[in-house]
């Protein structure tokens, strides 16, 4: 890892459809950092994560993530190194938990042999063949964490990682966050829960009025 920040946003604004969601956002995240991001309902936290995940383009300002310019087409090439666990699970309800992971492994180009180990690591070895749609929200989230364990990510974006998780799973998540930071990656944790995230984050930022304070 060179000294360049993993995430660098300057004066970024995001507009979705006809509304301005973010404006004038400046943010710099170095390798090894865990950043807590707080904000009220509808403050634009999810949009901020999707922006950093290169999934939406800034309407104003400029930014780079893992060295890729957010406004250009090159940003496709870094997507595989960005993990995101959103508010709504990005898994297919008709497929079993193991099938979901196998699909992820195949698309990402990692060996499907890792699926069983990843499921075991999140404590779902016994539920591998359960359809994702029939699994609880907490199990779906654990499956998504298993996916992030299988694939080597440099940047992890977690939207309310504590919601729907029991005590064991919370430990698992916090372990994953610490490990990612120790490996030289970076983690952004979006939350309402200042106490809990404050304990693991190196620093925190607040999203108010569409901008960071």
């Amino acid at each position, binding site marked *: 890892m060179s000294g360049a920040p993993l995430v660098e946003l300057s004066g970024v604004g995001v507009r979705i459809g006809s509304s301005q969601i973010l404006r004038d956002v400046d943010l710099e995240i170095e390798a090894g950092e865990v950043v807590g991001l707080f904000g009220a309902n509808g403050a634009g936290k999810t949009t901020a994560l999707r922006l950093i995940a290169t999934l939406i383009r800034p309407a104003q300002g400029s930014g780079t993530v893992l060295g890729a310019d957010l406004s250009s087409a090159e940003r496709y090439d870094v997507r595989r190194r960005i993990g995101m666990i959103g508010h709504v699970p990005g898994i297919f309800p008709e*497929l079993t938990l193991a099938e979901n992971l196998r699909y992820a492994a195949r698309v990402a*180009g990692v060996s499907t042999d890792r699926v069983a180990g990843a499921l075991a690591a999140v404590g779902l070895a016994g539920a591998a063949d359960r359809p994702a749609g029939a699994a609880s929200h907490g199990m779906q989230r654990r499956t998504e964490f298993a996916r992030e364990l299988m694939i080597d990510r440099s940047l992890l974006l977690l939207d309310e990682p504590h919601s729907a998780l029991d005590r064991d799973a919370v430990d698992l998540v916090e372990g994953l966050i610490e490990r990612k930071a120790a490996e030289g990656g970076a983690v952004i944790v979006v939350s309402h829960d200042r106490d809990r995230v404050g304990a693991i984050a190196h620093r925190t930022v607040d999203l108010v009025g569409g901008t960071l304070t």
Partner: protein
Amino acid sequence: MITGFWHQVRAVVDRDLLRERRQGDMLWITIPFGAIALLLIPLAIGTDAVLLREIGPGMYWVIVMLFGVLVAVSRASRETLPQQDASALLGLDPAAGFVGRTVSSAIFLLIFEAVVGIVAIGLYDISIIGIGWLALTLLLVAAGLALLGTLTAAIVNSSSAGTALVPLLVAPLSVPLLLGATQTYDGLQGGYGILSWVLLMVAVVLVVAIIGVLTARPLQET
């Protein structure tokens, strides 16, 4: 790119086929509905066997077209935004996603064509000549409709009125496929040249495939 293009295509095809098999929309709703549509026509226009034999093939193709549109509509509402995000962050090449979704749609359509085709042969007493050419026609129509449907679904994606718009966009653009299919059948029956019709369908398939692959990335931009 770390992963091979076709490797990703296969992963998407397997995913879609598995989802379809689990959900069973196609098997238990779309195909029976298509068969019922074939049954309704004689009820509406009368049961004159000669007339039915004459219009049967045409009716069959019209139903394949209309249901091809249905498959496209279901395709447009198939992946939620979080699912699309997750696939994108796995490094899925948008073009591989397009090809994979097209291939799985084409497989659904081929199954639909086969089952409804057997029903049509039974109900309308359709005679089969030139089985090789007919198989090629079925394949080209399935591929063409799958391509048009997948591309259109990508075009309207994430717009609220989008799904309702798919039939309006697909139907007029599938006219060459409809004419190609019916005229190939007529040509085989009447013993005149069908090569130009087959080439026309091939041209449609190639053109839409090229546009779909080239525009896969710009379409993901929003």
